[in-house]
């Protein structure tokens, strides 16, 4: 019995979810649409960005929104040498924990930089907004070094 050719076929399985944001994340995304960053004040006074719905310590419902800056400071980062299809950038970039001005907790986003050597902990960065904002995380295209 001769072995026939190897059969290959590409196929895609898609789950087209639409997710409800809830009022807190919805407020954050609405802020992005208006090119503003908003956090929330936790019971211990920390400002958390993106805002959380419940307090991380007491589990109480949170509601005190606080505007934060579109600039901040890199706390830690990881350089991506070879971006993959799902990544937000085609060129090498950094995933970074960014503490925005007025926030007490860093937020993850991507940082555009010429090379790994340009990115350091403590470097100042600024949000680069998308041409068209729709109320989604990608409304911030990336952060750039200041």
């Amino acid at each position, binding site marked *: 019995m001769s072995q026939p050719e190897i059969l290959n076929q590409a196929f895609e399985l898609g789950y087209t979810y639409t997710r*409800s944001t809830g009022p807190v994340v919805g407020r954050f995304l*609405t802020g992005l649409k208006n090119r503003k960053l908003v956090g929330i004040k936790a019971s211990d006074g920390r400002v958390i960005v993106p805002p959380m719905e419940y307090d991380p310590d007491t589990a109480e419902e949170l509601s005190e929104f606080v505007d934060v800056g579109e600039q901040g400071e890199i706390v830690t980062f990881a350089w991506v040498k070879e971006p993959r299809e799902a990544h937000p950038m085609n060129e090498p970039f950094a995933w970074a924990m960014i503490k925005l001005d007025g926030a007490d907790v860093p937020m993850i986003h991507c940082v555009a930089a010429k090379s790994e050597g340009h990115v350091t902990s403590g470097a100042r960065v600024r949000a680069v907004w998308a041409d068209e904002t729709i109320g989604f995380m990608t409304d911030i295209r990336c952060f750039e070094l200041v």
Partner: protein
Amino acid sequence: MSEEEQEMITKVEAPVYLKYNFTAGSAPTRFLAQIKNGVLAGQRCPKCLAVYIPTRGSCGRCGVPTVEEVELSDKATVQSFTIVSIPIPNNPIEPPFIIANVVPDGANVSFIHLMSECVNEDVHIGQRVQAVWKPEDEWGYSMDNIRYFKPLDEPDVPIELIGKLTVTGEEG
């Protein structure tokens, strides 16, 4: 309500796409190569003699490889069925339609396919059916070479004999 509240974001599109490249193993490749020739090919277990289709290359009961290829009939018996009344997204077939598990003559297991050219309310377990094939020049490596199964004017198969007929449709 302020202008800002009116345009409050309440939902986000969050699709997940899983991109696969499916490679058929040796047994499914044999099966697909044969269906391209218009042949339903099963494989027989060397131990319990059960004939499987589509073939997986092993017997689930005995845990041994199946090698012997067996050509099956395109006549089959309805083992179970369901009338689909609700449209399925992206499915071009308009309900109501029938999905049936059919056991081809010579096999001991069923596979799933469509039924048509039938009165939906008259479809029943044990009903005899036959494959309606696409034109030969449209055959590919696909179960879609069979458009659907249609009823045959033959006596019903008693439930205890479903999945036990020989390739010529006789009691095994």
